[in-house]
């Protein structure tokens, strides 16, 4: 018991790791601030493509989504970060993470937006068009708000997944939270910094998970 406390909950080591881990947290949040809006936008475009009238556009969008849902994000990230330099394209870790996660997130957001768009009855768009709204106006003011509301819990769960996903950036030595904690662990041979990082992830994400559960109950009930 003593040993577990010493190896996992060593407050002295946690205190030493805290400044570095907090700086890592700032980077984690920065990645999220870049990747979540980009992924949502890319996902929305792919979703619109996947329900478009033009068949080629539909196939292209669904092909994109399925391809990037099939490739593990870490494989994509390492391919971009370690593979592309062989072709003379050397990206910074931040750029590699942004591009890799943009492609991965877009695919997941696209599936959610697609379900949302399909959940809005066709009559809504037809009624909006008949009042004189243009196609873009109909989408922005009538279809999209209802679509987003219908899939809000799924969108939020995906945000949680993206925040968790940023931990992969540590593999390409981008100094986000897990990277910082792992660094202190390797210096101290003690797992407490990792427990500290885990605690911060929990504080960050647990409220969101509870919120999602409440949304889901409200929609089901």
């Amino acid at each position, binding site marked *: 018991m003593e040993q577990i406390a010493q190896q996992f909950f060593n407050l002295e080591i946690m205190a030493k790791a805290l400044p570095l881990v907090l700086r890592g947290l700032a980077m984690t949040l920065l990645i999220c601030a870049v990747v979540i809006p980009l992924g949502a936008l890319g996902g929305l475009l792919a979703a619109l493509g996947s329900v478009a009238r033009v068949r080629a556009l539909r196939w292209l969008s669904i092909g994109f989504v399925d391809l990037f849902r099939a490739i*593990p994000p870490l494989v994509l990230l390492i391919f971009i970060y*370690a593979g592309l330099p062989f072709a003379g394209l050397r990206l910074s870790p931040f750029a590699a993470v942004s591009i890799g996660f943009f492609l991965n997130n877009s695919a997941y957001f696209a599936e959610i937006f697609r379900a949302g768009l399909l959940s809005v009855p066709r009559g809504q768009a037809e009624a909006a068009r008949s009042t004189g709204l243009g196609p873009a106006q109909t989408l922005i003011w009538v279809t999209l708000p209802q679509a987003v509301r219908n899939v809000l819990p799924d969108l939020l769960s995906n945000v949680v997944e993206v925040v*968790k996903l940023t931990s992969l950036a540590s593999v390409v030595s981008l100094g986000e939270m897990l990277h910082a904690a792992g660094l202190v662990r390797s210096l101290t041979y003690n797992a407490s910094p990792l427990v500290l990082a885990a605690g911060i992830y929990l504080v960050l994400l647990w409220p969101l998970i509870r919120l999602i559960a409440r949304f889901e109950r409200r929609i089901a009930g």
Partner: protein
Amino acid sequence: MAGFVDTFLDAAVLARYAPDILRGVGVTVILSVLIVLSGVALGLALACVRAYRIAPLSVAIVIFADVLRALPPLVLILLVFFGLPNIGVMLSSFTVLYLVLTLVLAAFAEEIVWAGITATPKGQWEAARSTGLSFSGTLVYVVLPQAVRMVIPPLTNRAIAITKMTALGMVIGVPDILGQATTAQSFSANASPLTLAAIAYVLLFLPLVIASRWLESRFAPPGA
């Protein structure tokens, strides 16, 4: 174009490392099957236990599910892999990856199956109980089959997402597809092994992704 092929699809490099990557495919497939079987079974069992609504047990299950859903799997993998040896528990990287991903999948599966159990109409419980079936009998023979049917699409999606995470094993040295490919890439100083790995993942997972699309339309709730 020739430069592109030499860099990403060099025939000599591909031929040299294809056997390693193929062995990696074996490791990835075995891990994936083990994780899906045990993770889904454990999640199903936990959801059933929760149905008895014994307060301390339910609270423990909810905490387990919340914590494992909130923590990034890579954090858990590193924590277990580097933490346990310090207190005298030695596990292979394969075992660590298997254990962590099984628990993560179990947490998600528990929540998904539980949602299915609560969504099963109350009348089903009442009707089954009134025929003389016990609580456990009702749960296993009446409610669970309906609940599981309802949640097959989200369960499949989650299982696919978590089996893809076997690639994280590369970080702790599991010789899976990505692990073999990154080793080969650094030996050969060529990106072709990574290309081969990406192709292997697409061949493995694209059929599953397409199948999950089909399942979604097949098991769509009426009216949706």
